């Protein structure tokens, strides 16, 4: 479990990219306009781009680079550009602090990002 931020510092519609996650590629944390919190893999499985920079509508995030869409609840890809899902992670709030329990599943990463993590 890692500490992400104070809930008060992540307004609705905001996102946060967590780069310092032990043993994991970066994680994206979203606070949707509806008030839900979601943590998913930050890296689009199609090509290396940050989903935290993407656009959230309802329960989906659209990659800013090629508009691949992932379901924030399940991690499912739209199957058009991105064929592989992103992992979803548990979010917990304790005394106003947001924590993320990173999934132990193996992440799908596009080729460019695989090199980055390996190094």
């Amino acid at each position: 479990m890692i500490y992400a931020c104070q809930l008060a510092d992540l307004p609705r519609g905001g996102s946060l990219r967590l780069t310092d996650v032990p043993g994991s590629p970066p994680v994206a944390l979203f606070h949707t306009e509806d008030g839900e919190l979601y943590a998913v893999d930050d890296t689009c499985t199609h090509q290396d781009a940050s989903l935290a920079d993407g656009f959230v509508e309802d329960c989906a995030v659209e990659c800013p680079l090629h508009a691949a869409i992932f379901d924030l609840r399940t991690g499912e890809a739209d199957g058009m550009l991105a064929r592989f899902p992103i992992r979803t992670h548990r979010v917990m709030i304790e005394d106003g602090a947001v924590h993320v329990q990173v999934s132990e599943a193996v992440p799908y990463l596009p080729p460019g990002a695989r090199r980055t993590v390996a190094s």
Partner: protein
Amino acid sequence: MTTLDPAPAPGSPAPGPPLTSSLVPTLSGRWYTDPEIFAAEQDRILERSWTCVAHSGDLAAPGAYRTVTVGRESIVLVRGRDQAVRAFYNVCRHRGARLCAEPEGQVRRSLQCPYHAWTYDLSGKLVAAPNLTSMPDVDRVANGLAPVAVREWIGYAWVCLAPEPPSFEMDVIGSVVSRLGDVESIEHYGIEDLALGRRISYDVAANWKLIVENFMECYHCATIHPELTEVLPEFADGYAAQYYVGHGAEFGEDVAGFTVDGSAGHPRIPGVEAGQDRRYYAITIRPQVFVNLVPDHVIVHRMTPLATDLTRVEVDWLFLPEVIASGADIDRSVELFHRVNVQDFDACERTQPGMSSRVYAAGGSLVPSEHHIAEFHRWVQDRLA
């Protein structure tokens, strides 16, 4: 004795016409033909002045974009999700590819370079690029699209490429005030609330200054504009609406509306005052806009100088939204000034070849009803000095 005056040597430029208090000189011919002068005009006039480039209705929804030419630059205008219109150089900051190749279009959230997919949000910020996450030192604002100053006024987007634009109030609104006497006179027409009824684009094989000069005088009206002179009889005197401050040419007694045959037009724009009714006003906003105001519609001309001898003129006919929504016939209204434009642009195209004649090397002359054009010439020369 004139008979003893030596004849000009063959091949030498002709002297200018004999000038008197009635005749004052024009610019010399090379001002209309010399590519170096044209380049200087692009640099010091077209790329430094406020330029009217798009109707706000062309950028109706967030993500609607339009590419336009200003001076030697391609500029992309886009309406943001916050409804503001922004303008950027149409150049990817990465390797310089033309960002938007189409003249207009609609994007959802971002402008993306078709070369390496550098992706900019509608405020110009770099939001994504392949492997950008591995380059945390890349400043997304500094590497965002290069912005251009933009203003929306009278339902049009105006841009200025100067890093420190001149005062919009002085240059643009000031032009209207010096023509009409006050800014309220144009506000009465509520141009920003009018709807686009017709747009015609003319490619004119003439230098842009010939088109400005033509618009400023009416010495030619009785000769080439039979329909316009029928509707505005005082134009037969040759004194244009541009000559007197605040003066609008009055419709003829038997003229019902500003139409090609003088028949009735459409309901008067509600804000137009009684003193403006049945009158025609013409305004030049340097360097590239002409506006015509008549009681039931407004005509906006936007010029884009493309070469010494080529100018694109886009003309919008704007009517009350309910007139357009009702499907009313606007053909006779549009046809009047469309004919005037064709007549004017034919005259400009007839003039352009003469600009490179040795006979015109020292220029020609302006008659008293054209003397105010000399002030335009001084303005151009001052800008290039």
